[in-house]
């Protein structure tokens, strides 16, 4: 039995090898191609089995789908105008058209950098950039040479063998050394200015929130003003206050954020507190938290009032609202009387409770 099966398998495999694989693909709807991005979009709905849960059948279906679509894309690519890359022996290369889909940016666009010192000065003075020619006529060599760089006009400065001593200079001074030193200084100065411009650009980016924009809230401005006051050498100790600025209240804990009980404080009170804690833990029923109960009550009342107001508004409409303004006030006052008595009882405790929570 096993031997027969093996033969069958081998025969089938041999047949498979010889049969040519088809390049024909049948699709209901045509695919959309964006050859510039090597993209093929298949608008056909996928076979139902491919959508249902994982399994070998789903895998094979998806694989077949992928193969078919890849076949179609490859067929299209082969239709493009092709050429040989490096002459006759090079690989066959297809010229792709411009991509149709514009892919979005991966990262946000760069921020415009602040102008450098020179740019600021130039803008102020109205100096505009004059385009220079890249080649200069070299009289010595009688040809156009580049302005700077390899084979520049005016000869290689490193091979200058003569440096004249100018009229008023010290005859013992080494002029070539002076030239070299001057060049080094120029390079260093340029580098320094470049770094300074860079630092300025970074600095302004970091300190942006501290400049008034016109869209800042009162709290933000207050915070910024506080930061600005403290940013002095004495950390704001001798900084005069603005006319209407309130005095800074001294912080309760003197800069410390966590405070602990005293080591040898009132031990009797501590004992009392611990016993209270233990009693609370050992008792079975949950303790009533006054603060939470009061806040919950107030929230419910506010929600009721808001719901009632919203319903009234929806019913009456614009004109009705204006007409109903006065009677509405009266009824609101009357309605509140009943709640006010209830509230007043709880307000002192509730107010205190709320403050504690905040």
């Amino acid at each position, binding site marked *: 039995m096993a031997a027969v099966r093996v033969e069958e398998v081998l025969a089938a495999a041999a047949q498979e090898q010889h049969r040519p694989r088809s390049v024909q693909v049948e699709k209901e709807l045509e695919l959309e191609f964006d050859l510039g991005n090597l993209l093929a979009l298949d608008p056909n709905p996928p076979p139902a089995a491919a959508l249902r849960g994982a399994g070998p059948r789903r895998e094979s279906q998806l694989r077949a789908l992928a193969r078919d679509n890849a076949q179609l894309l490859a067929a299209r690519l082969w239709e493009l105008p092709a050429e040989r890359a490096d002459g006759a022996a090079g690989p066959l290369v297809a010229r792709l058209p411009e991509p149709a889909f514009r892919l979005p940016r991966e990262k946000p666009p760069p921020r415009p950098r602040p102008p450098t010192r020179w740019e600021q000065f130039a803008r102020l003075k109205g100096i505009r950039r004059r385009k220079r020619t890249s080649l200069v006529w070299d009289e010595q060599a009688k040809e156009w040479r580049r302005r700077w760089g390899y084979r520049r006009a005016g000869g290689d400065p490193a091979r200058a063998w003569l440096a004249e001593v100018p009229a008023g200079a010290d005859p013992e001074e080494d002029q070539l050394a002076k030239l070299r030193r001057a060049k080094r200084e120029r390079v260093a100065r340029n580098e320094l200015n470049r770094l300074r411009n860079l630092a300025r650009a970074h600095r302004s980016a970091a300190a942006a929130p501290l400049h008034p924009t016109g869209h800042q809230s009162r709290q933000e401005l207050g915070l910024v003003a506080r930061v600005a006051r403290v940013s002095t050498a004495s950390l704001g100790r001798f900084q005069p206050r603005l006319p209407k600025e309130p005095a800074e209240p001294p912080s309760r804990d003197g800069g410390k954020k966590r405070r602990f009980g005293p*080591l040898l404080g009132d031990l009797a009170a501590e004992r009392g507190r611990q*016993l209270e*804690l233990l009693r609370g833990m050992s008792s079975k029923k949950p303790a009533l938290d006054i603060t939470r109960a009061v806040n919950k009550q107030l929230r419910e009342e506010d929600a009721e009032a808001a719901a009632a107001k919203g319903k009234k508004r929806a019913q009456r409409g614009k004109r009705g609202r204006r007409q109903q303004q006065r009677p509405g006030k009266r009824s609101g006052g009357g309605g509140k009387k009943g709640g006010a008595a209830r509230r007043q009882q709880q307000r002192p405790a509730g107010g205190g409770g709320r403050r504690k929570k905040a």
Partner: protein
Amino acid sequence: MGTHRSEQCRALTASEDGSDVTFSCSIGENIQLLVDRPDGTYCFRLHRDRVYYVSEKLLKGAASIPRDSLVALGTCFGKFTKTQKFRLSVTALDFLAPYAKYKVWVKPGSEQSFLYGNHVLKSGLGRITENTAQYQGVVVYSMADIPLGFGVAAKSTQDCRKVDPMAIVVFHQADVGEYVRSEDTLT
């Protein structure tokens, strides 16, 4: 001594108080007798993440020792681990054992095993207090009513009856054998 530094000796904050008293409370409700003693004022102090039970007299003396030089004071009840969980230590046994509400008695054969730091198996379980909940803190006793250490009940009393002999019924937490084993590290 009130400033916040990693080695400060300070009173427990409410949350710390709660967590370590809760743990002790899992031992029993009579813990208030530790706090409310007729023969003096005792309190808990936190020093270098360890909780010490000190008398007022001793505390006043310890207050004059520099913070960095102070190793321990009074009796160490346990420590707060890195993740702020409270772990009872064996040095609290003499104080907490009399007030234990949930007790577990261990057979003579597996006493030794517990004292070496192993958990208590069903086969070594002698008696267990009725109504012990699962994960309840318990005090482990020998059959002669000598307290051996602390543990946590792995199974409630009902489950203990049904489970097979090789199952763990009490997780080991601290035992008196640590006095010998961890002699150097006990405070």
